[in-house]
């Protein structure tokens, strides 16, 4: 399968302009024979929205923009980020990621771990998602994560336990630390996590970060794909926008899990029993 990463700089607060950008990349990907095209977090809105969340929010089942994106997903599967407002929960806004394929929504992930310290203030504007789950796709069972979700070890474990063979993360990670030889210091953190997860779960790990600058925050780029044995399959430049492709052998997950049977030997019931004990203990103290 061919996975493409659109390392773009979305237009802050302008959904229709971002839609055009998405359609342009979708067409480019379709012509390149791409199977799945991944965009960054909040790719349809830009990141630092603050009170713009309300006016940029969409319901993917009814919005005009999503009709066009769903149409484009007939040529290539699309993973795009947006602000979601569900008809059943009006006035609540989720930082969401949608997987579109052949004109329909295969899966929708709502960001579970919202960063809210230092330069981040997502809890001020967004509601928290609750689900981390894998779902079926023509290319293998897949899971979606959004930015900070990726830095919580339990997100990866849940997808692994739920049978994911492909993990797709959309990100809007600003860079910090400019002393190193290449890119921001924080980019290393994402790369190390990506490689580690690929190796220890035998999963294809796809990470698409954004670029550009919003009110002084510099998004770091450096998107990547690791194959299930932890080898880099694609790498985008730091800071600059890019469109990169990764070719993944469909048999790679099987081979990696034969060589290193960590999935076979996993014991989710042990994890569950211990987590229950830990959670209970914490509540009683």
């Amino acid at each position: 399968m061919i996975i493409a990463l659109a390392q773009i700089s979305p237009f802050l607060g302008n959904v229709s302009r971002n839609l055009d950008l998405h359609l342009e990349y979708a067409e480019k990907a379709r012509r390149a024979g791409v199977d799945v095209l991944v965009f960054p977090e909040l790719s349809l809105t830009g990141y630092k929205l603050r009170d713009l969340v309300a006016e940029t929010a969409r319901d993917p089942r009814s919005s005009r923009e999503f009709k066009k994106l769903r149409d484009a997903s007939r040529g290539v599967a699309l993973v795009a980020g947006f602000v979601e407002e569900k008809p059943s929960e009006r006035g609540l806004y989720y930082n969401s990621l949608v997987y579109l394929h052949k004109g329909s929504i295969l899966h929708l992930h709502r960001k579970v771990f919202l960063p809210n310290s230092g330069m981040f203030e997502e809890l001020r504007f967004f509601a928290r998602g609750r689900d981390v789950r894998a779902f079926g796709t023509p290319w293998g069972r897949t899971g979606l994560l959004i930015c900070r979700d990726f830095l919580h070890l339990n997100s990866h474990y849940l997808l692994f336990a739920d049978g994911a063979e492909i993990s797709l993360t959309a990100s809007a990670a600003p860079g910090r630390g400019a002393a190193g030889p290449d890119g921001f210091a924080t980019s290393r953190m994402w790369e190390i996590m990506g490689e580690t997860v690929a190796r220890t779960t035998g999963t294809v790990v796809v990470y698409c970060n954004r670029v550009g600058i919003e009110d002084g925050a510099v998004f770091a780029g450096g998107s990547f794909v690791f194959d299930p044995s932890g080898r880099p399959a694609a790498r985008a430049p730091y800071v600059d926008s890019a469109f990169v492709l990764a070719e993944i052998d469909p048999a790679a997950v099987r081979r990696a899990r034969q060589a290193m049977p960590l999935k076979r030997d996993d014991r989710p019931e042990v994890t569950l029993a211990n987590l229950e004990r830990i959670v209970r203990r914490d509540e009683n103290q």
Partner: protein
Amino acid sequence: MKINEPFVEKILTAFIKEELGKRGFKKAILGLSGGLDSSVCAVLAARALGPKNVIGLRLPYGKGKGGDFEDAAEMARVSKIITRTIDIAPMVDAYFKKHPTRERLLKGNKMARERMSVLYDWSAREKALILGTSNKTELLIGYGTIHGDMACAINPMGDLYKTQVRALAAHLGIPERIRTKAPTAGLWPGQTDEKEIGLSYDELDAILELLVDDRQTPDEAVARGWAKAKVARIINLVRCSEFKRQMPPIAKISARTIGHDFLYPCQWDR
């Protein structure tokens, strides 16, 4: 304290270009003092926007003369930006003739604000956005005139300590004389930053980095060998100048108030 200079240059030129573009500007304007910070900022702006889109104003008090004034001319020449000289003495003198003072700090601050007043006027005349040149050291200890040299539309330099600006200057090919002369706020003749603050920039930056970037407590900074009095003095400077780094607080009365719960990004695409 180390920075990757080519990477920082890339980020800051992208910042200037992108922030200007989003605000609908192609040109930038800044005051050229002949000092390190404005020289670095001029070169970054010239590389980001093209030198013909950058205007450097030389704003001497009186007839321009002396090393700094010549260095400002040299920087305009080296960076190929457009330059213009405006003497602020007539405006400043007219004011102090009516309201005399012997306090040189009052005079110096008035001059800094007069320069910024001229810059905002030329910003509107030239449709050029004002670039701030305050570095992280100055901003943290509040060593600047509020609404004077601290005013600007965007500030590419504000997350670089003085010693980092110096490293970046060498990478950008700023003439050695400008890089090595004693930094001065230029509030009165013979003033130097380090004499007035009572600490060298090397000391200031090292202690600030420990306290701010590395989140060390004052006691931890002292345990690393820094004099307790110096650490205490820096903390006091930082605390006393917080007002210079913030928008003025607004008394909240209504259901939705600017700065409290009316919160928008500075500029978005429309």
